[in-house]
């Protein structure tokens, strides 16, 4: 077997709260600093400290960023899971085992190295508290040494991780050196994996989706942020707060924004709607349980036509479900959130760049369409580290929608809050406080006519909801449109969205190797547009790949599509809480194509 260069997984099994997170990030960034694309995924429990956590670093020459099953190098630091972790390894895996951990069954088919971490770390610091943290840097040194990661790359990563704290950086570097030395003293023959310098990460950034979304919102003119903490969405708001605090004060140091940590998600939704009504760009972020609680308010926002942006960083299950696992389970629910007939704009970011773009775009769309806009991220995108090209500065004017100022009111004969003046279903609005005789109107649920007057008349109600539907139709072509990638000669299509995208990118290459050419449509928003139907028409079979049990997007497409048969449109689903990998999607498609799956 030859040497595999820049294409393998490193898995670290550890305990949360043990400080291994910094070490893992340093290891990941060291590879990145070698010019090799990486993707880091943290698999953590729903508690604060003391439970098993795994961190997977994927190095990928091709820049594949989805989860990849299989581990080439395992660092087993957690006594509680080491036996299990080791048992799951394929023969030949390199395992670094903390030598204080005794294994019941020693496997001879692995390359198992017992590392005297406790002894090694003792050299570096006499302080027990520090040792607990530094021990992790030792495995960074060992792994780096075996893989040929250069010291410069590591030091750069450490400086970044402990930026400003030179003493800490130096201590950590010392720990890395100890690890490197130990590895040099304990060489491995024919390891078979190596990191080689490349130029593939130059200028790139590493960021998580939540921070990226926050950045987009802050540069998109976010004015009011209301939130209630919930994993995995909290860092959307926490990052936004940090950026707001840095960049959004006037010359007197006063805030050009407001943040409210609310008592719950009902309140967050209310604040966002109240602020949207009064003319501020407002947003909140939550996860499924919060979405459920916001249902009534979202319906109000839809019927009263008030802008509101709601991020849903999707996780698994109800309440104590699997709050630290990922899913795309809220697509259908958010699209039609609230009782009665409703349909909302939903943006579906796949990358951190999308998060950044949609952070601003959602605010624009909400004000343009005067309606709630959802951004459906997920835990994998939101909380993991992703490599990306740097984000461009958006300098197009903010789209504030059809707002009638005092001056504009002077120019028009009549103002009717809910009238379809332009034929696009989107009415004009005025903002509270506008000092004009024609400005004021009374906002209430659906019981109103086009002048916002109370009405229980059948035709008034029907007119309102028909126009709302028209507005939704208008949105089809104005939300972010799908991106299509084709392969000459392909008769099979794949549709995916959100983080499933990354599994498709790799999956298509794998499929191609199996002789199956595919075209790929990445859906980026709801409502769906005509192109989706054309894409389906133009292919023999189309696989909709997603991360939920019920094939929610598959159903939405079937619902939207005319004359779609199941024979043509097929559903591939992955829904065990882990991010979808390329293999799951390939296997699903191969099964559909009745190709033998290995």
């Amino acid at each position: 077997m030859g040497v595999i260069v820049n294409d393998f997984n490193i898995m670290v099994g550890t305990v949360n709260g043990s400080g291994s997170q910094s070490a893992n990030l340093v290891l990941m960034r060291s590879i990145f600093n070698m010019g090799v694309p990486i993707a880091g995924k943290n698999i953590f429990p729903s508690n604060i400290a003391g439970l098993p956590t795994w961190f997977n670093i994927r190095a990928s020459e091709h820049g594949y960023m989805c989860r990849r099953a299989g581990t080439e190098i395992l660092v087993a630091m957690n006594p509680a899971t080491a036996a299990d972790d080791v048992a799951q390894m394929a023969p030949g895996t390199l395992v670094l085992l903390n030598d204080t951990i005794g294994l019941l069954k020693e496997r001879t088919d692995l390359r198992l190295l017992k590392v005297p971490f406790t002894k090694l770390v003792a050299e570096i610091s006499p302080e027990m508290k520090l040792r607990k943290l530094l021990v992790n840097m030792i495995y960074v040194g060992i792994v780096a040494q075996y893989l040929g990661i250069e010291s410069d790359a590591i030091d750069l990563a450490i400086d970044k991780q402990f930026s400003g704290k030179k003493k800490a950086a130096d201590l950590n570097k010392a720990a890395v050196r100890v690890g490197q030395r130990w590895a040099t003293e304990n060489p491995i023959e024919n390891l078979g994996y190596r990191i080689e310098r490349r130029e593939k990460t130059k200028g790139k950034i590493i960021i998580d989706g939540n921070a990226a979304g926050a950045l987009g919102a802050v540069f998109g003119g976010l004015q009011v942020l209301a939130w209630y903490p919930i994993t995995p969405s909290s860092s959307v708001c926490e990052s936004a707060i940090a950026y707001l605090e840095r960049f959004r004060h006037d010359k007197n140091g006063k805030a050009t924004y407001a943040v409210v940590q609310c008592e719950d998600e009902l309140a967050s939704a209310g604040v966002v709607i109240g602020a949207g009504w009064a003319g501020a760009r407002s947003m909140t972020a939550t996860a499924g349980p919060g979405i459920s609680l916001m249902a009534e308010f979202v319906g109000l926002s839809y019927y009263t036509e008030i802008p509101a942006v709601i991020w849903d960083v999707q996780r698994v299950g109800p309440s104590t479900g699997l709050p630290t696992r990922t899913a795309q389970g809220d697509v259908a629910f958010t699209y039609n959130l609230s009782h009665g007939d409703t349909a909302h704009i939903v943006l579906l970011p796949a990358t951190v760049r999308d998060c950044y773009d949609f952070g601003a775009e959602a605010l624009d769309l909400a004000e343009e369409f005067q309606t709630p806009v959802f951004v459906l991220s997920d835990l994998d995108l939101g909380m993991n580290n992703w490599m990306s090209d740097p984000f461009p500065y958006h300098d197009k004017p903010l789209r504030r929608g059809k707002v009638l100022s005092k001056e504009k009111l002077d120019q028009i004969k009549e103002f009717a809050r809910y009238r379809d003046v332009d034929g696009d279903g989107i009415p004009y609005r005025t903002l509270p406080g506008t000092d004009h005789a024609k400005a004021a109107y009374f906002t209430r649920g659906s019981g109103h006519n086009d002048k916002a007057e109370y009405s229980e008349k059948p035709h008034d109600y029907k007119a309102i909801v028909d126009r709302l539907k028209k507005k939704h139709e208008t949105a089809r072509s104005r939300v972010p449109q799908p991106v299509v990638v084709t392969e000459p000669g392909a008769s099979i299509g794949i549709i995916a969205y959100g983080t499933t995208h990354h599994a498709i990118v790799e999956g298509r290459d794998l499929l191609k190797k199996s002789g199956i050419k595919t075209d790929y449509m990445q859906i980026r928003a709801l409502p769906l547009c005509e192109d989706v139907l054309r894409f389906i028409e133009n292919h023999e079979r189309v696989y909709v790949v997603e991360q939920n049990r019920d094939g929610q997007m598959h159903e939405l497409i079937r619902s939207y599509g005319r004359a779609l048969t199941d024979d043509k449109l097929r559903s591939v689903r992955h829904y065990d809480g882990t991010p979808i990998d390329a293999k799951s999607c390939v296997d699903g498609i191969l099964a559909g194509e009745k190709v033998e799956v290995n």
Partner: protein
Amino acid sequence: MAEQDQDTPAAAPAQKMNKLGLSLLNYRGGKSTLCAGCGHDAISAAITQAYFELGMNPRQVAKLSGIGCSSKTPAYFLGEAFGFNSVHGRMPSVATGANLANRALNLIGVSGDGDTASIGLGQFCHLVRRNARMVYIVENNGVYGLTKGQFSATADRGSVQKKGERNTYEAIDVCALAIELGCDFVARSFSGDRKQLIPMLQAAIMHSGTAVIDVISPCVTFNDHEGSTKSYDYTKAHDWILHEIGFVPGADNIEVEFDPGTTRDVKMHDGSHLTLKKLATDYDPSVRLNALSVLQQGKADGKIVTGVLYVNPNSESFADSLKMVDEPLAHLAEKDLRPAKSCLDQVMDELR
């Protein structure tokens, strides 16, 4: 200046103008659809009068409410003001959002006892805690009027429903709660006592934080019978009036005359004056525990205590505590909202 103080007997009362040159008509709203005699309508009239007399621009006012007969009333006063009839029990959060988006708006929230003390209790408490600047009125009739008369959470233990059912739950006293939660303006009144309610409202409107007024407002259709403790008769008979209330707007810059022996003077945040003329006892509304005791005592004696229960005129509003710009956020221009390119570049650099 203060036109409302000039008594011009020549002009017909309808023509009377306030300092903005507006007549009472400018402060009226749509025709009420409530039951004839409903306490809520009297409160709407008092609100109309209070704003008119204050000479406040109605277009700078925003009226918010939840759901209920009471929550309908913003449609029946200040027709030139923007209104928002939101969802049941959640007006406080909507008002908070509106306050943050445009701190120059003068907010008045109208709620019911069901809207506030049943479904909305959590939001009410948290609004008070945040101290967003607004007047929050509970039109308290002890029942859910709009859904036909079930007991609400402010119904007194032992009081009797129209159909004869007796309430077995302890009543929630929203004033006591607000005081306990740190609210800096807490008062109780009676829809039948216009003389008390109007100046109380005016002081509340000028208060710099959340001002809570619980107004006993009888529901003539479902809770005005014998056995009710929220009927007109019962309220009149059991009203323990703490003091006689007066209000002198600050903008008028008039030196207030009052006798320190008989009247307490509270100088509000904006310089206006709330005067409290001593009645049977001398009640000091600047001590929280006084308010809690007087409420406990009222309860023990079967009395409804009305008046300004607690006031701290130096209340730091939510917008202030957030250190927001003075200009309403909603009025900020794009340049204030989008940081410079250099800021983004800086962040990108850090992420490399």
